[in-house]
């Protein structure tokens, strides 16, 4: 893994300029958001502490104002990073491991396994991830792992398709055949020699899906299916804040949303930039052959 990182970074100068600036801008945003989160933990901001001023507008004491229970929205927004990013991360990890392992097996072995799993993932692919997440969240309830699982299932087909496609395309290549000839078993072939081929595409997709995962976590929270209160979670917070819009309190539903947009933008920039870069390098490789 670290060797791969070094290899990718050594090509940094060769990357197309626009994609490079996208990755850098996105990384800066993500690091800033994470920094805010770490700052909140170090300084010891308390997202649950109440003051006697409910719904007070942004001021020097409370940069983002307070919510209906008098809790500081800045502390809640910064602490919310932990939960949103954690749940999104869990969902990405679950979907990448299930989707790409089944995709690898399916592409490698072909035959009946391939047909059945392709059909199943195609059916799943037809349903929008949020609808699947609503369905599952309604069944198993909310929680950090449960919500992560609910979101993960809708994204599995994407990894399945990518990994299966790559497996099919490199299965007949000489280096795989020679590895097989010196006696490598299927597990060795798949995990040591073939999956590394798919890693760049998987990483780009994972980064993009971190962004969509954050949107889905807050979407579930907004619909009342997210992490249970009083957890500071952006979607739940802005959903609760919306009752006060008509009375003129705009801040409880504005700032958590801003945090969502900023962090999603960060991950999406990195993801799209990486995707363009890997695509450009893989076409260059193809031209060499």
């Amino acid at each position, binding site marked *: 893994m670290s060797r791969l990182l070094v290899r990718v970074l050594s090509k940094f100068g060769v990357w197309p300029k626009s994609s490079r600036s996208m990755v850098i801008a996105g990384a800066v945003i993500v690091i800033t958001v994470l920094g805010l989160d770490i700052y909140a933990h170090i300084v010891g901001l308390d997202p649950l502490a109440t003051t006697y001023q409910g719904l007070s507008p942004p001021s020097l004491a409370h940069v983002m104002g307070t919510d209906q229970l008098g809790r500081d929205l800045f502390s809640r927004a910064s602490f919310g990073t932990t939960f949103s990013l954690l749940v999104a991360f869990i969902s990405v990890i679950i979907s990448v491991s299930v989707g790409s392992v089944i995709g690898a097996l399916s592409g490698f072995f072909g035959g009946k396994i391939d047909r059945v799993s392709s059909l199943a993932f195609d059916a799943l692919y*037809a349903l929008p991830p949020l609808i699947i997440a609503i369905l599952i969240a309604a069944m198993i309830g909310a929680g950090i792992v449960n919500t992560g699982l609910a979101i993960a299932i809708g994204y599995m087909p994407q990894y399945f398709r990518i990994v299966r496609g790559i497996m099919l395309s490199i299965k007949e290549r000489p280096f795989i055949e020679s590895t097989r000839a010196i006696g490598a078993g299927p597990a060795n072939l798949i995990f040591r020699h073939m999956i590394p081929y798919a890693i760049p595409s998987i990483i780009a997709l994972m980064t993009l899906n971190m962004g969509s995962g954050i949107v889905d976590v807050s979407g579930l929270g907004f619909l009342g299916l997210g992490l249970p209160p009083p957890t500071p979670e952006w979607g739940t917070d802005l959903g609760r804040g*919306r009752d006060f819009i008509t009375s003129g309190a*705009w801040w409880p539903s504005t700032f958590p*949303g801003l945090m969502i947009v900023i962090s999603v933008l960060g991950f999406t920039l990195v993801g*799209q930039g990486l995707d363009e870069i890997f695509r450009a390098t893989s076409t260059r490789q193809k031209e060499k052959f």
Partner: protein
Amino acid sequence: MRLRTFILLRLLLTIPMVLLLVTVVFVIMHILPGDPVLAVLGSKAASQQQIDLLRHQLGLDKPLYVQYLEYIFGLLRGDFGNSLVRQDPVTTEMAIHLPATVELTFWSMLLAIPLGIYSGVFAAKNVGGKIDASIRIGSLVRWCIPVFWFGLVLQIIVVQYGLPLPIAGQANPRIVGVPEVTGLYVVDAIWAHDPQALADAFLHLILPVLTLGTTMAASLTQIARTNVVDVLGEEYIKVASLKGCTDERVFRKHALPNAMIPILTYTGLQVAVLLQGAILTETVFSWPGLGRLLVDAVGYRDFNLIQGCVVLFALVVSLANLIVDISYAIVDPRVRF
């Protein structure tokens, strides 16, 4: 393959696809933990007798495969089961809420498709320039804004600046005196020749359609731009301009038609995203559509209604895919071979 054979084959392929989709939904609903009976009765108050009785009434005491077959054959007859809370058929509930969603998604698409495709093509025409960069950044940022937050911000703007726009609901109850013919308020108002009701229906549509429409437009812009830029890099474009075509003609006659095919396909596939966005938009604006019905059903743990809504969404998505594939085959004969 002739066009007729292709369409027939594609229609036949839809059947296992839909069956599989329904099965996936059924499996998720019945394998995962979570007991509809306890959810309806409330876990503490119910006695074992009540639980058994309700379980029997709902047919949940039968083996799983019997339940599955009964559900599938019910669907074939157009029977989605009964709502657990309201007791009336799920299809009736869905029929009441369908028109509002149709209205919302129709106007959103009417906004999104021209706006998204036009700005994407416009950006691609000026590729590398300032216009391209600003359209790219704009659509990327809009794409990162969650549907529900965009809607909330619109509501906040309307409230803070005192704009005369309704921020929730589908129509003003004081104005609606229009007889319901289709359930689509705009159509009904025109039917009844009632300009006031028509204006009211449109006013209520503005914010939700802006919310949902620009979401879809943002991703269409990105996809349209990428496809046109890709086509502009092809050899035949070079050939066309080398043989003396004007840039305008190359763009219009040679690049656009070829780029349009994948763009239109993608537009069809956006239906799934549109439905997902509709659920959130309807919740933000208290729009009485299917998305709202689904969210309410989740709130009451009305499992039959949840299952019905999701199956309906799945059917709509597969229908959209079917239409996309068939129109693809009509436009581009290469697909059929």
